[in-house]
């Protein structure tokens, strides 16, 4: 799966699970998710679980952080690097 498809899948998951009342156009691929509190720690870990199950990757505890997961762009890049 390429980066564009991952971004779209992650966006759909976030909208469905954490922002059910949000218009899709309001969530961009570069919207800050963690530092703005859109995703709290529980939501971030739920998203990690989704990534692990969907893309067959393993995310270590120290990788769950702002550096890799603050935007959909970063998340997709992280997933691709893990798959590579």
């Amino acid at each position, binding site marked *: 799966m390429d980066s564009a498809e991952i971004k779209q899948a992650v966006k759909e998951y976030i909208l469905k699970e954490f922002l059910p009342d949000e218009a899709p156009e309001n969530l961009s691929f570069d919207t800050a998710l*963690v530092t703005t509190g859109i995703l709290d*720690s529980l939501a971030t870990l739920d998203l990690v679980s989704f990534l692990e199950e969907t893309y067959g990757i393993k995310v270590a505890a120290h990788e769950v952080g702002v550096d890799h997961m603050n935007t959909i762009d970063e998340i997709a890049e992280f997933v691709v690097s893990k798959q590579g």
Partner: protein
Amino acid sequence: MTHDSNTSLQAMFRDRLTRNPDGKALTFFNPDGSHTWRTFSEFYQTGCRYGSILSRGGVSAGDVCVFMLPSDETTANALFGALLIGALPLMVAPPVVRGLHSNLKDVLDHVVKTTSARMVVLEDDEKALGEAMQESHPETAVVYTSAFEQGGDADAAPLVYPGGEDLAALQLTSGTTGFPRVCVWDQNAVLQALHGMELAMKLGEGDVCVNWTPLYHDMGLINNFMLCMAKDIPLVMLETINFLKKPASWLQALSATGATVTWSPNFGYAFTAQRVRDHHLKDIDLSKVKAFWNAAERIHLDTMLAFQSKFEQFGVPLSAMKTNFGCAENVGGATFSDAAGNFVVEHVNKRRLYEDGIAVPETAGNGSTNTVAVVGVGRPYPGMSIQIQSADGEVLPDGHVGEIALNTPSRMKAYLNNEEETNYALRDQYLHTGDYGYMRGEEVFWTGRIRERINLHGKKFDPSDFESVLLHIEGLRPGCFAAFGVDDEKIGTQRLVIVSEIRDSNEQPLEALVDEVREQVATHLGIKVDEVLLLAQGTMTKTSSGKRRHRFYRELYLDGEIHALSSALT
């Protein structure tokens, strides 16, 4: 060295080693379901090796050793090693999401300074924090978990057997100044707590306990780790992060190990019932679990019923759902619902409860909006007695709401270096918990907190925790804010609401200000603000005390009486 198994944790560990060295002690349940039991002898040996490394690093009996670590196997070994050499472990919550919690250094500074800690142990990838700590506290050793990977000599561990009056451990609890207070527990209190819990929970041979709660929380540390290690109960641990990623792993661990006992704050039950996927439940059997203990935050009847009903088909009867009340100031649990029966619920008149402070039972809920369900948190463990006291210290009769006061052999010795708050909490032979409740016979019903405290997923925050964060936001009027938690039965815990005045001079769009409040709180404290309400300068009603202000605004909010310039929900 001689020892009496009734005087210290260390003597109890040694006694277990003598009596049952080859019995199962501890296993970590991995996400793929694999787990390997370690005997107590193996765990003890590993603990001795870790203890020798701590000792070589300068830690002696009575020294405070701060661990800011996830609840994994290395941490369990290090914690046990510290206990074996008589050091005083103090567990500090690490960030779940790296890059948040930028106030961690401040919290660690405060903790190290308050306790004169001899050592701080951090994960290897926290070297920047470690270097900053070393610079600020040159007298405190900073070590990383890789130091435990090899080396050490189990035979060289300087094992100790303290007396009953000696200290056993320290525990953080939310404070009133934006920094946690440090509860000091002595050996007598810890042993009394463990004995009381064993009796009240009716623990015995054949019991197996599963724990996912973190070791920095007293539920993980006392109700699980210390209880199981001291009382010869096999303990299955899940790393907290693995439970939060996949709550079904908790149920899988219970099923795979034939566990009989487990603990969780209320939110864990709500979270699991909502998040577990059907395909994770294949071959799950929970019929051996005799007790799902619920404690550490408000217990919602709906959560208990939703969890039990969802997992009834896997062998969870209503009688397995248990309730408990405790606080860090009283080591371990204080009250327990009937280990052999159902927990108690009262449907009481809402107006009489909240306006008059009297719990008047009414016939069943019937969906009436005039009644509220109050879950009983059980009866005190044998050896403890409880009073409900008025603000004047008068003992109140059954059904009257007042402060829950414990005459308890397991109370803390003090708040470290905080005589004023110690004397207030431990006055007149009773531990004053700061919790509101009432009694009906021996059953205790918890109804709320005297001092506003925000409880998010079992982790407690004081409104003052937010002050320093909000102070730095241009546009907000310093000190003119309220922060409070609002119960949310759907998520089984509280939602966080912040109300703040803005400055007249503020030129930022209100939406941007709301976003900044969220961002700053997430970055500094690692938590999400569920709702931000901004008010014009000079419109927040003054109260003589910050404590009252937060409660006052919480009540206004619940009555729909806050008229904000801007509000934003997520």
